[in-house]
């Protein structure tokens, strides 16, 4: 895979190993123009932003990209990506629901719903109505959620004040090890012997510890294996506080990292429910599905213009 680069002020070209693949997709077998109800979910997270279009209750299109330096622009850019790909404009949309930490700063949304509720609803769509426990590993926080067969949250826990065990932590390690982030999972298994987890759960300290291990002669693969294990142990401790039921589903960017997912499954002794849908869009998908329900119950909303 190609590695994107940035140019420093000194003209130095620096590869960005952490940069994950942004993705814009539309179901080309469908035509949104024939849909009766079109709703949009916008998830502005701390690291990534997504826009999901749901047409008559079915996933139609999405755009997943890195969050910019402000929430309103990130929300608008996420929508513009889908607009460009599908030709659909806000005038064609019956309701927009915002979610994520920037949910109250989506200028064209009609309602804000927490990402906890939205991830549960999205996981219910992606993994089916047997999903009961959701682990959302986001950019800067981590949530363990219980839901019922409709995807309604019945209990939840969030990590406290620390980005350890989250996507941003993995990005830091990716850059430090100079391993493209999409390859970290596979390479973490390319070790002769599974190492113990790095001892620190703090990203800053884990980074120092990883450097120390490299100096001690560890291979990069072994170091990322130790980091993946640490991340898995950390999120499992969160899950154990709330309890894990069968129908276990993982959302968020880290769900794409088999190095963490398989280790979580091994510790828990439970296989996560698989899906073909991008796990990173779960929040926005849930938001769009809530919008669909609200339109059916309350009628369509008047479109709000996209910020200039």
């Amino acid at each position, binding site marked *: 895979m190609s590695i994107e680069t940035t140019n420093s002020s000194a003209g130095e070209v620096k590869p960005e190993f952490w940069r994950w693949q942004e993705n814009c997709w539309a179901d080309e077998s469908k035509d949104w123009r024939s849909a009766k109800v079109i709703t949009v979910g916008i998830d502005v997270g701390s690291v990534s932003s997504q826009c999901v279009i749901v047409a008559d209750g079915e996933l139609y299109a999405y755009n997943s990209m890195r969050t910019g330096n402000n929430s309103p622009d990130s929300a608008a850019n996420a929508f513009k990506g889908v607009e460009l790909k599908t030709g659909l404009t806000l005038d064609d949309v019956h309701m927009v629901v915002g979610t994520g*930490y920037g949910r109250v700063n989506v200028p064209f949304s009609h309602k804000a*719903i*927490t*990402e*906890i*509720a939205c991830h549960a*609803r999205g996981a219910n769509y992606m993994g089916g109505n047997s999903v009961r426990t959701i682990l959302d590993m986001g950019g800067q*926080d981590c949530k363990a959620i219980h839901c019922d067969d*409709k*995807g*309604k*949250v*019945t*209990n*939840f826990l*969030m990590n*406290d*004040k620390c980005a350890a065990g989250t996507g941003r932590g993995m990005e830091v390690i990716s850059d430090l090890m100079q391993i493209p982030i999409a390859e970290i999972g596979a390479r973490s298994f390319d070790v002769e012997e599974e190492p113990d987890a790095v001892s620190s759960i703090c990203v800053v300290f884990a980074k120092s510890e990883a450097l120390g291990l490299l100096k001690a002669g560890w291979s990069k693969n072994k170091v990322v294996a130790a980091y993946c294990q640490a991340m898995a142990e950390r999120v499992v401790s969160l899950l154990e506080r709330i309890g894990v039921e069968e129908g276990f589903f993982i959302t968020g960017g880290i769900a794409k990292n088999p190095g963490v997912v398989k280790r979580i499954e091994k510790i828990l002794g439970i296989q996560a429910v698989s899906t073909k849908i991008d796990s990173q869009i779960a929040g926005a998908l849930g938001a769009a599905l*809530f919008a669909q*329900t*609200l339109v059916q*119950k309350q009628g369509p909303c008047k479109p709000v213009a996209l910020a200039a």
Partner: protein
Amino acid sequence: MSGLFDQFKTWYENRHDYARDWKARKGGTVVATMCTYVPEEILMAAGMLPVRVLGAHEPQNVTEPHIFGMYCPFSRDSLAQGLLGRFDYAEGVTLSHSCIQYRQTFNSWKLHVPTVKWDYYLPMPNQVQSKFAKTLHRAEVAKFRTFIEGVVGKTVSDDALRGAVEIINENRRLLRQLFDYRKETNPRVTGTEALYASLTSQFVDKEEHNAELRRVLAEVEKRDNSREEGIRFMTIGSENDDLAFMAMVESVGATIVIDDQCSGTRYFWNEARIQDDVIATIADRYCERPACPTKDYPTHTRYEHVLKLAKDYNARGAIFLQQKFCDPHEGDYPDLKAHLEANDIPTLFLEFDMTNPIGPFRIRVEAFMETLREDELF
């Protein structure tokens, strides 16, 4: 929050200025009090102003040499206020025993705050349910009276004590009247307003506080019930004066209708029962008040008390505001949570620190509210 409660807000935000001003006006002594088990009646009867030590919710770097790292943020924040000279007007400092962490705050305070001229540790029994507790506590309160008489250099008469009991009882009664408005549908008093009132009663001259409470109560009666209550919450924990948190909760479609906290109801809930012996009147009241977890054994009286509050005030859910490392409250949490949930009061647990992350807390509170709402989204 409307202007009706502005005097309480002004007192709260300028509490040190208030105490200095009181000292200048009255010429009395100000005493820093730690924990709401301090029998304020004794201090008041001696012409002193008891000022409860509260934190400032700001980062500080002065307590590390003096208090253990795993002690609660309130004990650290309180000590910081002393070390930073914020209570330089307080000549005395006194603690009535409750938890060991706050005792360390007191010990460090009396050693390291240079403006302290005298200190008094009142060894109140924790097992207030013991048949010996009241006898012991009466004796300790009598000793405290004698000590204070030594400080002021004059007798603190029984009549002065009865006068103080009367004024403090009125304060308790007025606060309960104010809190009663929170039982209403679309309450005329919000949780933020009520907290300003109960917090300020812990450091404002009680006669002045009573006068303001009477004024506010007369005006509250004229208010309408137009503020949509949203979801009704109870808060549970130790001390909470994080008004930014309260305001956040009440800005997202909720109302905090009651609490079991020492910054709120536990401080003023029960009046002193008037007895012939004024020391017994004062001392027994502190043994009989709604218990803090440090004083709630072997029988756990709190659980039924908290549930009754939740039911009486029609709370839809309860939010535990758990001071990090507060062992007594953490010890109660699992059973109290189970008790509430078994009685259809769902709970949310938030860990409070010296400074609190309002944004992440908002996500938790809103998500909790979403779980409580009707199935409008499904």
